[in-house]
């Protein structure tokens, strides 16, 4: 993006002044910077910073910063939502695995008990039944190994959750820095509300909101009020 003429001229002037300071510094035999020169450098830095602030405002970057700032809480909220939902999903899987584990235990125990009763019998049917019960016990053991793998795979919630926590921390830090930058570039701007961009998708934070529903019962109630 090219600078507007007024800013381009200011920038050119700043560069010339900085070059003049540099020449002055290297033109003297004593390389040390005097107190006056130090003061001059700080004065110039102050001017450049002010010009940068003005440029940000004139180019409309302060509005962009404010937009970015307003998006941050929403981004954090969405990440929290992901962490919560993945956690709930992991617990549902673990509950189902616990139930399946008990069922497999029952199957293998019943098979063993039945086999013990068949020991006395020497009929061909008993032998066939015995083979089938062996297969049941073997498959039950294999199923429990699969269940164990499923349990271990749920650690994705812990691992992704830790990454999400770090991203949320980063977003918080960035939010603070953007707010600081915004206040420095345009102290009045923070009072003006910039409407955030509405993103489609699930409601990630329903607390304190009356414009959303949180379950099917609320949907049905609403539809009922319209005569459905």
């Amino acid at each position: 993006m090219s600078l507007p003429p007024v800013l381009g001229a200011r920038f050119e002037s700043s560069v010339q002044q900085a070059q003049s300071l540099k020449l002055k510094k290297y033109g003297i035999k004593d390389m040390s910077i005097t107190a006056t020169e130090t003061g001059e450098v700080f004065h110039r830095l102050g001017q450049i910073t002010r010009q940068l602030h003005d440029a940000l405002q004139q180019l409309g970057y302060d509005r962009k910063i404010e937009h970015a700032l307003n998006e941050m809480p929403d981004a954090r909220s969405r990440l929290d939502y992901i962490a919560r939902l993945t956690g709930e999903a992991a617990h549902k899987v673990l509950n189902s695995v616990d139930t399946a584990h008990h069922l497999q235990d029952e199957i293998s125990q019943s098979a063993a008990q039945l086999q013990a009763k068949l020991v006395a019998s020497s009929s061909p049917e008993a032998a066939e039944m015995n083979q089938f019960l062996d297969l049941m016990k073997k498959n039950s053991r294999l199923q429990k190994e699969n269940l164990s793998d499923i349990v271990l795979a749920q650690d994705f919630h812990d691992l992704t959750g830790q990454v999400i926590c770090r991203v949320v921390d980063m977003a918080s830090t960035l939010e603070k820095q953007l707010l600081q930058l915004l206040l420095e570039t345009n102290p009045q701007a923070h009072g003006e509300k910039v409407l955030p961009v509405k993103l489609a998708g699930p409601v990630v934070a329903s607390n304190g909101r009356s414009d959303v529903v949180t379950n099917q019962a609320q949907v049905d109630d609403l539809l009922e009020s319209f005569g459905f």
Partner: protein
Amino acid sequence: MGNSADIKFLIVDDFSTMRRIMRNLLKEIGYNNADEAEDGYVAFNKLVGGGFDFVISDINMPNMNGFELLAQIRAEPSLKLLPVLMVTAEAKKEDIVLAAQSGASGYIVKPFTKATLEDKLARILLKAKAA
């Protein structure tokens, strides 16, 4: 430490999913006696109360992290010989070195397998028995 099946574990992790996974795995391996704590602070208070034979701890936790918990355990005369296995997503070498220097009995990086956990537990318990 009595019979291996009687060993009482304390699982320390801020993620409830991970605590549950660990409890399930311990059960599958043959250890049915386990309690849980969500951070180092809660864990240390439980440990001081007595009755625990083994600690399995995460590192990144709020209030008191795994390293701080380990330091507290090693500084407490009644707990200083307690086996502490660190199970964490931290795969940085400096963390592993720090854990070893701080007195951890073992270190497992997440994600891990049941076989890895079983192997580490067996080694640590064998060492503890010999000591």
